[in-house]
């Protein structure tokens, strides 16, 4: 039951982990039972990835190496899904990024 996983991903989205991207990010994080955290540096501070207030407070712009770690049920799946989301630029095109 003490599964854990960790990964790092480069934020390529124009405005970074921002209003609309962070809505998607936290919603996806919340769909997993595992505890999930993010940080903009390997040594932290770590923020609760399910809290949009905390994720926004991490202020991660484009070009940030985002660290994601999870522990508990489905930890590996959670990390993988979140990394995928960041790599897909949060499923937004450039046009949307403007006003996000």
């Amino acid at each position: 039951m003490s599964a854990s996983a960790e990964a790092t991903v480069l934020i390529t989205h124009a405005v970074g982990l921002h209003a609309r991207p962070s809505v998607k990010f936290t919603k996806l994080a919340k769909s997993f039972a595992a505890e999930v955290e993010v940080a903009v540096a390997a040594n932290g501070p770590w923020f609760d990835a399910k809290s949009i207030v905390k994720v926004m407070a991490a202020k991660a712009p484009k070009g940030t190496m985002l660290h994601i770690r999870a522990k508990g049920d489905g930890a590996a799946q959670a990390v993988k899904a979140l990394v995928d989301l960041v790599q897909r630029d949060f499923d937004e095109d450039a046009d949307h990024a403007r006003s996000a």
Partner: protein
Amino acid sequence: MRIEGIPASPGYAEGPLFDLDQPPGSYKAKASAEEEQAALVSAIGKAVGRLTALVETADGDAAGILEFHIAMLEDDALSGPALAAIGSGQPADAAWRAALDSEIAGYEASDQDYFRARAADLRDIRDQVLRALSEEGEAEAPPGAILYGEDIAPTRFLETDWNKGGGIALKRGSTASHVAMLARSRGVPMVVGLGDDAQTLTGVALLDAERGGIIFSPSPAEVETFRQSASSFADRQGAARTFLIEPAVTKTGTAVRVQVNIAYPSDVDGIDVATCDGVGLMRTEFLFGKALPDEETQYRAYRKVLEWAGDKPVTIRTVDAGGDKPVPGFTVEETNPFLGLRGIRLSLKRRDIFRVQIRALLRAAIHGNLKVMFPMIATHDEYAQAAALFAEEQSALAAEGVAHKLPPLGIMVEVPSVALAPEDFADVAFLSIGSNDLTQYVMAAARDNAAVAHLNSVRHPAVLRLIASVAAFGQKKGVPVSLCGDAGGDPAAIPALLEAGLRDLSVAPAQLAMAKAAIADVSV
């Protein structure tokens, strides 16, 4: 001047009009920190409710911004510091303003334009809640008032003291909304769909929620006629009450079981257990409210009702969130929530939350005659998965040496797939027809939309045919079948339901007497 509407909860009310849509006032401090905190939580909820309604009409970009606001408001991390400040003596409005201003300062200090720009969003979020908070301080409706407006929030209904009479008159609204359900169960007269024709918003009005209408600025003659109708209604209700203490039987002597639907554990406080055959539906989503309840809270709630019922059965439905019943931190936002992740679908997806409820149910089961049912079952596999989780948690409790019992597990019949092909479900302990959802799915008419309310009838032959075939299946296979939707307590629907073969109905407590009286009139 009389305006016609649709009756949502029968009865009569004569009283001063109270405008539900009046502009906000200023915030009034509460007596204790707990009340201040409750005022803040409720104001946040109100702001989220408003934004959610806006999202539906907004286009892509605007909707994206609104969704961001909603997500921020729903995050406990945003309200946490304000709630803590209230705990140490601040009033809700000042605490919220200070907490948000500090958050806003953080954004303004950012060296990136994008993040700095979010300060405007935070200010918007701050002001939406301040606005909702100041409404909390508005003049309260006088006792016995008729609440009149576009629509009414469930919280407003719950805040109002209905002991002094009064009623609800809505320009829009729906007979299937949660407030309508609550109004029926508390016996509060309510009319919906009155439209925009009314000019007068002050003075005394007469609410006729039996036929569906409201009279503004009534003449003495109208008042006289109205009072006669009201007293005749009261007499009929009084006569029905003589049926209340007797078991329900039809004119030809067929016994019908009549149970009650409840939403809150405290609902049973006002019910004499001798007047019903048990609890046919105990909803659990209201327990979930703003936050997810822990195992102990749930256990105590279930145990209270089981102990009240003694050896009569109590059927508890596992959480039916989603659809028109969002739970922050649990349900997901969807474009078509009635067809989305709700009921058992959501519980199977969020097993961590579901397991907490299962453990509470297994532990409570030793205190009475518990039955558990799953909402929104569409396939047998969902039932099997849910039943397997009960088995798993049962072994876990056994291993821990915790007292528990496995209750009979049944399903709600509300998705047409189950009503059409019940043969897959011969192994479930019982079937309970949820007529509200079954009707909305068969008729493709959302239960919260007044514009299609005329389609939303359980008495449509298609719905009745499905109910009859489920009843027949249960009869043949020895699987008990009951019905727990609003139709069960509707005197106009009861004859058709009994003719369809049902002998077990569950109704709102306020409808027990009228339902038994209606049953006594049927010859089956």
